């Protein structure tokens, strides 16, 4: 009897605890009044779920994607850059001048966002002069002046600060001698005149691109020593002049920006508040989108679309592209020999262009696209994106999936099947390990298909994934024979980093590909003062890459981003999903509206 009573008592205690817990949970929704407050907040707040946090809210130092997005909202820019989808060229706009005229109504961004009124390029293309607006102010009321730019460029160029944007200063006077002479390179005759001088003729579009780095307010930063620059509390509490200001930042959790009522560059952001929530787990970001707790989630995987739409019809997927591609890298040179004493000789397996072409033929790239990316993938021929229409060669027919052709090509190269069905040449088996970085579902999917395809033509390919840091380190040190990775291309074509024959100067030429004509074409194209004049060089470049197959280009990826339908006015293009976020508007979400 006692026993039973004791049990009953214990159960009562447990139940009471549970009831207490649940009642406090219910209470979390708050009273009607409190719920109203959070609802109102939801209606005026755009929630963006991000994978990672910002690092420095400082244009000189910002390196993460989140930082760059937010810095773009907090700080003004000298000129507005706009990607023209009809040509694939970047256009630059200022209040009174545009690089290329655009038909009325086709401008996506307001030129009022630019700090410059107009610019003039010197006839010898060795200097560019900007005339700045006199009605632009930092948030503390001080005017934005030309000195701010000179000061900021000195920060960008400081080796102690180690900005990742040092490349932008590569043409300034003195850069060729290893030390930029800022007194000569950047002149500020008065508050509204800013002159950049180059040591060589620079095409106008490149001059605009490289001189439009975001400025910092000199009066706020001038007393910060370079060695203290990265530690300054101002990095966490920035003052800019853009359409938004920083409201609060709980690191690794949430960063909120609020519309800057004082802004005239071009105007205060439409949405009162934008909350960037840091949610490292993909599944949870997806769940947030499905429940309407997040309005934008980047990079939704195609396999999740149907579940998302089913759970929340208020979600739509928007695509951007084509800027990212995956490839299989084949080491063109024998890396062991290269690492040992710098000798360059062809790789025993992948040294011949014919063999690499055979490998591309053997791989059924279309079936990887059909199986994983579906309509969000496009066969890739070379690293010039079809989106860069002005340079893209649309006459190239993709290498077909042709295992028989591959076998024939390999036979010509002396690779014949052995007793076990694996190809052999001079006693060497065609057998290697294909490495990729861990945690990428798309590459895992592709690598399995590649393995099967290669097995079918008698090539033994083992798969191995490595932790990303280790993988990239190995790649950089040329320790891998074959690997799968990807590149995101820049909007200005500059592939020498990846294909340059001087392997010491081209650290990203992991394949060791060398072709003097490619080097030459890249240089010739750079020297042209007009984009379109460089087109013939880029066409030839694509033909050469297509012929040499330094890597097997797999597919271009259309990035797919989840958007809540309560967002209006969004314009996505290759520059990114948040391209015109200050122009977005929010409709009250149906399940939130009272």
């Amino acid at each position: 009897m006692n026993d039973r009573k004791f049990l009953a008592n214990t159960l009562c205690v447990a139940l009471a605890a549970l009831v207490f817990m649940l009642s406090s949970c219910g209470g979390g929704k708050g009273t009607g009044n409190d719920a109203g407050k959070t609802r109102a907040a939801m209606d005026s707040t755009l929630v963006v779920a991000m994978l990672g946090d910002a690092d420095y809210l400082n244009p000189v130092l910002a390196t993460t994607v989140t930082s760059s997005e937010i810095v773009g909202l907090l700080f003004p820019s000298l000129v507005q850059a706009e990607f023209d989808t009809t040509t694939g060229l970047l256009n630059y706009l200022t209040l009174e001048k545009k690089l290329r005229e655009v038909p009325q109504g086709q401008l996506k961004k307001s030129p009022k966002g630019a700090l410059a009124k107009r610019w003039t390029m010197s006839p010898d293309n060795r200097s560019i002069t900007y005339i700045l607006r006199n009605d632009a102010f930092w948030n503390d009321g001080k005017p934005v002046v030309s000195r701010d730019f000179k000061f900021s460029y000195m920060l960008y160029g400081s080796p102690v600060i180690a900005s990742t944007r040092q490349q932008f200063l590569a043409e300034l006077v003195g850069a060729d001698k290893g030390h930029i002479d800022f007194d000569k390179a950047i002149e500020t005759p008065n508050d509204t005149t800013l002159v950049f001088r180059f040591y060589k003729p620079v095409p106008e579009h490149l001059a605009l691109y490289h001189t439009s780095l975001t400025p910092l307010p000199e009066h706020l930063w001038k007393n910060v020593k370079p060695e203290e620059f990265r530690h300054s509390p101002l990095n966490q509490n920035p003052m800019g002049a853009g359409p938004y200001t920083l409201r609060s930042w709980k690191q690794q959790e949430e960063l909120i920006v609020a519309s800057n009522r004082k802004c005239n560059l071009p105007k205060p952001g439409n949405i009162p508040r934008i909350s960037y929530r840091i949610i490292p787990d993909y599944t949870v970001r997806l769940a947030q989108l499905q429940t309407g707790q997040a309005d934008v989630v980047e990079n939704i995987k195609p396999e999740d679309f149907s579940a998302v739409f089913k759970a929340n019809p208020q979600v739509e997927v928007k695509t951007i592209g084509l800027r990212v591609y995956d490839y299989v890298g084949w080491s063109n040179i024998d890396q062991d020999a290269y690492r040992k004493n710098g000798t360059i000789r062809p790789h025993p397996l992948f040294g011949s262009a014919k063999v690499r072409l055979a490998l591309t033929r053997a791989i059924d790239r279309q079936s990887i696209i059909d199986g994983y990316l579906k309509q969000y993938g496009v066969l890739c021929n070379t690293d010039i994106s079809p989106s860069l229409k002005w340079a893209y060669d649309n006459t190239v027919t993709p290498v077909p999936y042709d295992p028989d052709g591959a076998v024939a090509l390999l036979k010509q190269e002396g690779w014949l099947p052995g007793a076990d069905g694996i190809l052999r040449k001079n006693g060497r088996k065609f057998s290697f390990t294909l490495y990729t970085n861990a945690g990428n579902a798309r590459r895992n999917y592709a690598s399995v298909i590649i393995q099967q395809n290669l097995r079918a033509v008698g090539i033994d390919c083992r798969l191995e994934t490595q932790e990303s840091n280790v993988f990239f380190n190995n790649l950089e040190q040329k320790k891998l024979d074959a690997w799968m990775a990807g590149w995101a291309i820049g909007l200005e074509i500059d592939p020498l980093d990846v294909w340059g024959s001087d392997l010491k100067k081209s650290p990203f030429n992991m394949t060791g590909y060398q072709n003097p004509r490619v080097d030459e074409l890249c240089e010739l194209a750079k020297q042209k003062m007009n984009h379109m004049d460089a087109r013939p060089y880029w066409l030839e470049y694509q033909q050469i890459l297509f012929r040499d197959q330094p890597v097997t280009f797999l597919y271009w990826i259309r990035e797919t981003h989840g958007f809540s339908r309560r967002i209006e006015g969004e314009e996505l293009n290759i520059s990114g999903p948040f391209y015109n976020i200050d122009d977005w508007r929010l409709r009250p979400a149906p399940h939130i509206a009272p």
Partner: protein
Amino acid sequence: MLTYIFKRLLIAVPLIFGVLTLTFFIIRLAPGDPAAFFIQPGISPNVAEQIRAQYGLNDPLPVQYVKWLASVLQGDFGRSFSRAQQPVIEVIASALPVTVTIALLTLAANFIFGILIGIISAVRQNSFVDRFLTITALFFYSMPEFWFALMMIILFALKYQFFPASGLNEIGAENLGPLAFTLDRIWHLVLPVTVLSINGAAGIARYVRGSMLEVIRQDYIRTARAKGLPERIVIFRHALRNAMLPVITLMGSSLPFIFSGALFIEVIFAFPGMGRVTVEAIFARDYPLIIADTFISGSLIVLGNLLADILYAVVDPRIKL
């Protein structure tokens, strides 16, 4: 007892230093480069070199070690490489409150529910209740936490939207009053704490059951019952106290968990806690942060063991320190 504690603490100092020194060298042996992030096309190759110089990674290893030792002895663990060069102590200080809140709630729930279920199972050995609780406990004990967490999110945040899927507070929660804010925080903590504590409680319940069963069979329990003591007193005062010994070991060993954080839960529910700090530091090869984290968890393991030993003596007068 005080001498004993003092001695133990004294031994702990070289031990922890040994651990830190080992960590210092082992992480530098691991492949990967703290400046790897700065090696990409479009970034001048000089940048990685400048960054390495800033971090002091170009010095020979022994020099790096001596410099590090000198600053650690002054209580300075340096600045984080990966988190905008914040002092590592600040990084940890901002992550600790989140982790400690979750861990304390979890531990309380763990032990309360674990001990209760354990007692019930033991007292009602082989009954339907016992079997039911045992099977349920095993079921949850063997479930991977990350999967369980995702299932809970799918069920209670997606399908039935009772609880939020992630985060510590609702949008606009800062406009709420302090009470409503706290309740909102608790509401956000229900799912993660439930996931963590169901798994933990199930384990503790198994320990308590086993240990209770052994104690209940002892002569002195029979004596207590023969004296006519009420069952409640027999169980709680006579049996439970003796059955708690193994549980105390568990309490001691869960101290590091309080401060080291539960990685899966923090990643899945997007809490900026210690687990994430540590793992992200490892992936970024953020040496100062990794060492500071090791210091904290190392010290806590030592302290936890000491605490368990002291608690033994408190609970069991036969143990003399």
